[in-house]
């Protein structure tokens, strides 16, 4: 009897696997035309972020090289040198500035097998109190005469969270990400891309330093601080649509819209519009405007009514209701074009973005002349600069 059941299960599993394999093979047999390997290039970038009492800068390098006709590999090295006297540091740690460094190294390999482009990558990110390892796999293919490109991918990340000054503190979390995207040529001047993304987190998702504040009539500031408590799971989904349109005099318009929601109650959307304009043969100018808005997480509160007021407690300003707007521009100068030798083209680029953040339920708790809960809402501006050299070979 047991054997018979086991056999029936085995038959069902075999049939399912066979049908599954058939479906996959048929799906890819529909897709026609070969994809192409990414271009061989090297980029060296210096980045700088300054805003809200935080300065972050550092170098980044990305090199991509093909091996034969079917393999492309890349390596990336990225550094954030952080000096922070942010509002969070001032309110929680008492106006001290902390310094830290984040180093990220990533390696990827792309394999082109007839009509299929497969990508594998590994990324390691290290801070003195945070370590992340991420593996990803993706597959991409052109279909229907090259008018359509379908891509899908999966990534898994393992994180270890530490706490400076507390060597015994060690927590972990895991992240899984599934993504699907479709790029579609609409006309000879218009291309549209859609992307759908689901991400799940499990484990310790707090920032170990952040605190929430609650009303404490006995304290001189009328509030006191206690540790944040986040849920141990989070699932989010995002859907984006992007378009680029070629203008008759060789320029491009681009637009983007994204919606987002997660199991913590955050709903967000953002849009961007931009314009790219080449001029004088070797120059390309670009400008863009971006606007973002989100609602708060269910367990967020700027000032809880009393200690341990609810199961989950959060006061991260990233979980509050806020909006931000970005206005930016970039300029590129191309040189060494078509001169033969080992370099196809090179460019030097400068990009500048100015971002304004406006919080709607996160108050500036540093302003002690106000009663707790009546301080002005926090707002800050940030300037982001990038200077980089790109070489195609």
């Amino acid at each position: 009897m047991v054997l018979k059941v086991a056999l029936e299960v085995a038959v069902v599993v075999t049939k399912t696997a066979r049908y599954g394999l058939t479906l996959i093979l048929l799906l890819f047999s529909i897709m026609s035309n070969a994809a192409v390997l990414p271009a061989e290039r090297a980029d060296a970038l210096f980045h700088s972020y300054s805003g809200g009492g935080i300065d972050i800068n550092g170098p980044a390098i990305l090199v991509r090289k093909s091996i034969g006709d079917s393999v492309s590999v890349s390596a990336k090295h990225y550094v954030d040198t952080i000096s922070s006297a942010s509002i969070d540091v001032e309110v929680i740690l008492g106006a001290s500035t902390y310094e830290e460094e984040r180093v990220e190294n990533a390696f990827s390999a792309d394999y082109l097998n007839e009509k299929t482009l497969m990508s594998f990558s590994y990324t390691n990110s290290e801070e003195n109190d945070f370590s992340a390892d991420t593996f990803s796999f993706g597959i991409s293919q052109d279909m229907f005469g090259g008018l359509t490109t379908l891509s899908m991918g999966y990534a898994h990340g393992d994180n270890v969270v530490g706490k400076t000054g507390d060597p015994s503190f060690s927590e972990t979390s895991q992240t899984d990400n599934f993504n699907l995207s479709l790029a579609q040529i609409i006309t000879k001047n218009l291309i549209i891309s859609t992307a759908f993304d689901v991400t799940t987190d499990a484990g310790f998702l707090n920032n170990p330093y952040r605190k929430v504040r609650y009303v404490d009539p006995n304290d001189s500031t009328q509030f006191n601080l206690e540790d944040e408590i986040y849920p141990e799971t989070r699932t989010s989904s995002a859907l984006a649509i992007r378009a680029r349109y070629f203008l008759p005099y060789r320029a491009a318009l681009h637009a983007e819209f994204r919606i987002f929601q997660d199991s913590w109650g955050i709903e967000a959307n953002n849009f961007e519009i931009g314009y790219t304009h080449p001029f004088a043969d070797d120059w390309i100018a670009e400008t863009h405007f971006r606007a973002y808005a989100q609602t708060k997480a269910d367990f967020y509160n700027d000032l809880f009514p009393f200690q341990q007021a609810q199961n989950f407690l959060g006061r991260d300003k990233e979980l509050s209701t806020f909006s931000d707007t970005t206005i930016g521009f970039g300029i590129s100068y191309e040189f060494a074009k078509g001169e033969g030798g080992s370099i196809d083209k090179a460019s030097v680029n400068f990009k500048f973005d100015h971002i304004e953040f406006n919080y709607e339920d996160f108050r500036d708790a540093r302003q002690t002349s106000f009663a707790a809960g009546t301080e002005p809402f926090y707002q800050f501006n940030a300037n982001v600069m990038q200077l980089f050299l790109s070489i195609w070979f």
Partner: protein
Amino acid sequence: MLYKFTSSLLLLLSLTACSVQPWVKPYERANLADPIMSFSQDPLSQGYMHHVYQAREGARGAEGGSGGGCGCN
């Protein structure tokens, strides 16, 4: 039943795929091939800006590029 139906549908599609005529012919794609029309012109720069936003906004995902790490303290 669902598998058989789907398999049949995909088989039919695979047989007819060869006859799908691209309405924008390869020789009409010069504008689309211009680097200014690329969704990912500068991957390193793009990845950096995604990271700038990811660290300061609640939303994440569907950026059309890759990020990595946290760095959001």
